[in-house]
């Protein structure tokens, strides 16, 4: 049985920022099938039409976060967007907005990663050593499935930057940590192994910090992994406001016998 083939036009944003700024769109005719993704189409163009298309990709299964780009006006993952679901014969690919551009579809993530790093996204715990150094320490934290569910959703984040690209505050404010970093601050706060919220509150309760989010919701609208950063951010604000009560009990490690 053979599958019907469709022809589409792939319009790709082209420029090299180190040489000349003048961007242009190149068009490629690509034959696609029902399951062809935008990434497949781009790689097809790269292999057989124009090998100079610069594009970042790796896993092709929506778990590495490399292939974020603006597809038909909205930030999406190229490997996660099937051409057939776009309902259009012209597919326009542009680099993610709000990231410095390097070349064609490739953008610079160093600032995005720096924001993530700044919120200290690792377990702080004053009572339990975070390094396991001797065999007596071979006991894990006790954490029930319900306690895992409190933060699990936020650890789905693949750092693809789509939310960062959609957020209207990020569009003008370079110092705003952005939805990704802020939702990670919530992820660690909701994790009952961590007691570092005082430190993290200090970091995000800043002039350009969490309050520069005005619940535009666009981050959650585009997130491909269901992280719902907007939720995490507002819940975090609730804690800063003193509205949400803080009932987290820091987990303890189990005893050898348990």
């Amino acid at each position, binding site marked *: 049985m053979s599958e019907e083939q469709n022809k589409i036009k792939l319009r790709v944003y082209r420029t090299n920022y180190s040489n000349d700024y003048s961007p242009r769109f190149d068009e490629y005719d690509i034959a696609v099938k029902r399951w062809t993704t935008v990434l497949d189409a781009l790689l097809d163009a790269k292999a057989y039409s124009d090998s100079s298309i610069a594009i970042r990709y790796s896993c092709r299964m929506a778990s590495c976060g490399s292939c974020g780009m603006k597809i038909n006006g909205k930030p999406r993952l190229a490997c996660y967007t099937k051409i057939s679901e776009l309902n259009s014969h012209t597919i326009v690919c542009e680099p993610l907005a709000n990231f410095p551009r390097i070349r064609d579809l490739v953008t610079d993530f160093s600032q995005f990663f720096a924001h993530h790093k700044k919120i200290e996204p690792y377990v702080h715990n004053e009572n339990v050593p975070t390094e396991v150094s001797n*065999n007596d320490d071979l006991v894990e934290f006790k954490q029930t499935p319900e306690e895992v569910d409190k933060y699990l959703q936020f650890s789905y984040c693949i750092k693809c930057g789509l939310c960062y690209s959609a957020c209207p505050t990020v569009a003008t404010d370079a110092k705003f940590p952005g939805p990704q970093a802020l939702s990670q601050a919530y992820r660690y706060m909701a994790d009952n192994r961590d007691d570092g919220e005082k430190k993290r509150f200090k970091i995000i309760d800043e002039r350009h910090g969490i309050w520069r989010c005005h619940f535009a919701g666009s981050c959650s609208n585009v997130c491909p992994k269901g992280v719902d950063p907007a939720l995490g951010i507002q819940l975090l604000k609730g804690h800063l406001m003193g509205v949400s009560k803080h009932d987290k009990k820091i987990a303890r490690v189990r005893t050898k016998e348990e």
Partner: protein
Amino acid sequence: MTETLSYDILIVGSGLAGLRAAIAAASKHKDLKIAVLSKVQVMRSHSVSAEGGTAAVLYDNEGDNLESHIYDTIKGSDFLADQDVAERLVNSIPKEIIQLDRWGMPWSRRENGRIDQRKFGGYSFPRATYAQDKVGFYEMQTLYDTCLKFDNISFFNEWFCTSILHEGNNFQGFTCIEMKSGDFYNIVAPAGIICTGGAGRIFSFSTYAYSSTPDGLDMAFRAGIALKDMEFVQFHPTGILPSGILITEGARGEGGYLINSDGERFMKKYAGEKLELAPRDVVSRSMITEIQNGRGFKHITGVDCLKLDLTHLGEERIKEKLAGIREIGIKFSGVDVINEPIEVRPVCHYMMGGIHSNLNGATEFNGLWVAGEASCNSTHGANRLGANSTSECLVWGTITGELAASYAQKKKNSSINIDNQQYLLEEKRIYDGIFRGRGDVNPYEIKKTMTDTMDAKAYVYRNENDLAEGLRKIRSLKELSWKHVNDQAKEYNTNFINVMEIDSMLRVAEVVLMGALNRRESRGAHSRIDYPVRDDNNFLKHTLAYYDGDKGPRMGWHPVVFTRYAPVERKY
């Protein structure tokens, strides 16, 4: 002029092994400067795709024990594993699991708050420690986030390493290209760790990320280090069509069935006791046999396949424990596994072979270690058990990181003088030989032909004719004039990177085929229909391949280490 940067430890690869090594080294000596180089950004490495679990003995009070994990690993390897290495793996991994927990890993839990484990193929106890079905992803996240604690770790994202700098047998550094600017650099350090992962993209139908090409292996190979056991390529039973994306073994661990077109759970014919949870080599062979006997399905692309049935697990169980594969099924195959079986076929998934290294992950060069899938310290022998690979990455990440840190600490004050000749030669190789090369054959077509050849000639069942023909084909491809780069820009030139990758793929594919030709027996994942039985008299040894210029590899053998277990017949 080529710029030179210097560090104390260089780690190539920011996958599980690389990140674990970086943390181990950074926490051992706080004043060592550690550079992690990777051709992709952090958190983009292939390791994020690992799904099912990490094997470890956690519940000795419930009947599990280290001994059993060791024996399962060795039996799974078809007795080609170095037994001291397998022991090391099993003894060290429980600590790594706890360590990850302390760092914030979202392990799936039991009601009482302890870490849960699931069944996995080839084990006699449920010991795959899991976090939904995104184990590798969460592990990567936990490690990366923890790395950010250490000020002495610097990440070099999107730096492509091209070769090893060395003075005789002493490691000195790497040459690399910063992709963003296109500049060529030498980075030197007394100690280095290669963690460049697997090379499964030499096959077309593969679960690997596109970045999993053998340039790391090839780099060591060209420097004169042996590649070991490369003919052992694992085919995972359940890759979806047409993309080859993986459905984790955890799906069978949770109770999924494999069915043929008669609707029969055919695994009972091949592995009466373990059924679907036999090791991967056994299941994959059974599937191909079923297909060859006409009991397969046809996918709409025309490819033969079988089906994996999860419908009886129920919606709640699937959503809770296999959320990721449900998503993959819907998105990439159009099948919601809650409602219908999904089409699957054996798919290239893991390379047991890699850079020759010993119990400590040390290579033949002083100051150079190797960890993770890129290494072959012979934990997995002829067939890896599922969930043992992430374990290996964590364990040898730690071991090599600590060893490299001690070594670098000792050498901290001795200066490194690199031999200009070496990087000039490398510059010539990649810029004159590849970047400014000429030719009329499209390198991407070469890649396609090569990977299709590997799929056709070195799949689950192999034979002399196919392998020889495959080798001839690969060699003829090497002769063609495809080494040229159309894109002449300096910045972010993926075309250039791709051609360098293809160059390394051809060399390593050749090693795989040569190894497979030489091994005239069936052992683990390497299954020859012309030599269908294991031959312990002649082949209970590792294959080595050394670089020998353009002539192709020089092959050799290496003994297997035994401690306690004598080879017996494998039955499941």
